[in-house]
């Protein structure tokens, strides 16, 4: 029982990341009709915003410590971060410690700018082009973005720890009447889950309760008519692209303590989140979120050794297997609408 609950938690956690990326993807599908293969790269860039902020906060000047020597036998140069120098050792260290949450604030404008630049500079010219062209140009963009990141940060993963306050695990089981220590779950993963829930809720509320959202939803349903009504739908779609970029970027920022970021994490998540979008139904926001959590949970269950013993290799293929079954039984995904992306 405990094992299953833990796996559900794992699945929800994985699912949060899938859902956040897929949400942005499907938002872009639904509004702009563009298949954006660079969306994974936006997630990756979000993670590297956190890495960069961490590095900036760690910018140091060196002091020569005569008492110690480095690996060549010369006097050791000790690095003192400017932040610690300016704000005092304790405050400075605390600022560095909280670099990941701080990165959220930094990431929002940066991701919005990147999103707008991408849409205005590139994607805009591809609205009328075939989907294959959209896939290719965004795929090319994804390669370029990840190679640029690699040129600056190298290929190996970079550790970006969560604040000390969130290190360790929370005894979740005790609240629900289980034995103590039966269901321990790391604080940061719970934070990630809550964060994802808030972001998803915010996006839905924005689309549901604001005039802006209403117009965008109308545009998703029938772009032409909205245009005829004299509404400049393009400008709003640019904003939607920026929002999608922010959502994916924040997903990346918050994910860094769970997974040390590397330059190809975007590509790793891209195919998965693509499958998530298709399983959920193209252009369906609810579908993307539901499918994200569903696939996350199924993937976790398939990783249990009891299941692997029963069906060897199932943990390798479960996502794709589910995608095939869903697409064959429900042609437009779980919650897809008719006529979207079928040409």
């Amino acid at each position, binding site marked *: 029982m*405990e*094992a299953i609950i*833990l*796996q559900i938690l*794992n*699945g929800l*956690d*994985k699912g949060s*990341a899938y859902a956040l990326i897929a949400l942005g993807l499907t938002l872009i599908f639904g509004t702009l009709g563009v298949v954006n293969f660079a969306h994974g790269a936006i997630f990756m860039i979000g993670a590297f915003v956190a890495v960069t902020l961490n590095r900036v906060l760690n910018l140091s000047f060196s002091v020569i410590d005569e008492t*110690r020597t*480095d*690996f*060549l036998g010369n006097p*050791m140069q000790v690095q003192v971060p400017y932040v610690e120098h300016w704000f005092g050792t304790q405050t400075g260290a605390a600022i560095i410690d909280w670099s990941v949450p701080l990165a959220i604030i930094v990431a929002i404008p940066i991701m919005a700018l990147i999103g707008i630049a991408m849409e205005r500079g590139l994607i805009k010219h591809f609205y009328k082009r075939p989907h294959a062209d959209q896939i290719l140009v965004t795929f090319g963009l994804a390669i370029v973005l990840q190679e640029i990141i*690699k040129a600056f940060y*190298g*290929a*190996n*993963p*970079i*550790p970006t*720890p969560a604040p000390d306050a969130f290190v*360790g*695990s929370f005894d979740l089981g005790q609240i629900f009447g289980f034995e103590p220590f039966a269901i*321990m779950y*790391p604080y*940061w*993963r719970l934070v990630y889950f809550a964060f994802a829930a808030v972001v998803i809720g915010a996006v839905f509320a924005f689309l549901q309760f604001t005039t802006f959202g209403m117009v965008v939803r109308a545009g998703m349903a029938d772009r032409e008519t909205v245009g005829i009504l004299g509404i400049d739908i393009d400008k709003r779609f640019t904003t939607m692209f920026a929002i999608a970029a922010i959502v994916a970027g924040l997903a990346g920022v918050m994910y860094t*303590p*769970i*997974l*040390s970021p*590397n330059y*190809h*994490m975007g590509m*790793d*998540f891209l195919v998965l989140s693509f499958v998530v979008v298709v399983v959920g139904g193209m252009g369906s926001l609810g579908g993307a979120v539901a499918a994200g959590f569903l696939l996350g949970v199924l*993937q*976790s*269950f398939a*990783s*249990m*050794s009891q299941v*692997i013993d029963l069906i060897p290799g199932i*943990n*390798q293929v479960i996502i794709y297997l589910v995608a095939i079954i869903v697409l064959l039984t429900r042609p437009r995904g779980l919650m897809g609408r008719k006529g979207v992306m079928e040409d």
Partner: protein
Amino acid sequence: MSDKNLSRRGLLKAGAATGVALSLPTIFTSKAYGFTNEPGASSVTLGFNVPQTGAYADEGADELRAYQLAVEHLNGEGDGGMLNTFSSQVLDGTGILGRRVEYVTGDTQTSSDAARSSARSMIERDGAIMITGGSSSGVAVAVQALCQEAGVIFMAGLTHSNDTTGKDRKANGFRHFFNSYMSGAALAPVLANAYGTDRNAYYLTADYNWGYTTEQAIQEATEGVGWNTVNTVRTPLGAGDFSSYITPVLGSGADTLVLVHYGGDMVNSLTNAVQFGLREAQANGRDFQIVVPLFSRLMARGAGENIRGIFGSTNWHWSLQDEGSQAFTRSFGEKYGFPPSQAAHTCYVQTLLYADAVSRAGTFNPCGVVEALEGFEFDGLGNGPTLYRAEDHQCFKDVLVVRGKENPDSEYDLLEIVEVTPVDQVTYAPDHPQFSGGELGTCNPGA
């Protein structure tokens, strides 16, 4: 009508040309060389085949640095590095057999296909007489087989799987790096000493060849000192989030987790294990422990603080105090500003060993080189007295058991050496079951 005639004539011409082209091999005689890519009088070309793109690109970059350093030293530039400490003193800084050493580089992309292709282009286009490098066993085995077919020498880079000198060994291929069996044999006594002889181990294993041989090696070695294996679970390559593999560990009755992962997977699985509190956990009335059989310092950086206090094994570390290691660390550090990795070390040593073998044999002929390397005993290259065993072309030398350092001085100073396991303890018979099923064949000098 005339149109048709024209095209028929055209086709006849094309047909004749095709016929000539197809019969070309018999018209021209092949170059009358004794062996593939016999070098000219002034220079010799080596092929450095390292991962420049993909997940191991940083290892590849470090290997390339070491190769460039080795070439400098062979050509008599720089401070000479380990040439001065090498027990065999036939290399004098005038290149190899009086020929200046030049090199070409290729990208393995950490894929056996791409690696073979770039090795082939170095052999066919650039006339490389020896191929070396790589940062994974799949690539090493694939390229080694290619070099055997093409008739050039392969000096393996970082490859840890038993198969490279086990079931996939080849006469033209040589490995200086240690292997899974040696890791197990070196680790088991240290682990028994530190954690007791009645541990229950849970294995998370990367689901590919290297994972299989390493899991088997560690399992057999630890069971030899009394440990018990609770479960072994295979994890997909690049799984990213390992939480669903980690969470069942605590409830399984195990008190030790062995992470048979390398590279990015090792960083992620170790980070996840620490996040889930395995290091603070208690099981069977004891502190829970984590073991990582193969450490790589470059990758260890990605795991940050999580690596502290964790046991593992490594081929070489820059903090070794012997003369050879210090000479190498000094000349590498002065050129590049940071200490070399174990991948850099093994690649540098392999280049020197090849050059030395050619010089002693007096010929670049692969069969002469094979003869010179087989059974060769040397010292002064950082691992103490070492033997290149004739039966399987594997180097036998001391193995380092290391532990993540508690208070590192710098970002390079992550591992501390716990024990230098003497070579006798890690030596095995050439037909040991973990290595069976392969044969060297005979050396192939090619054309």
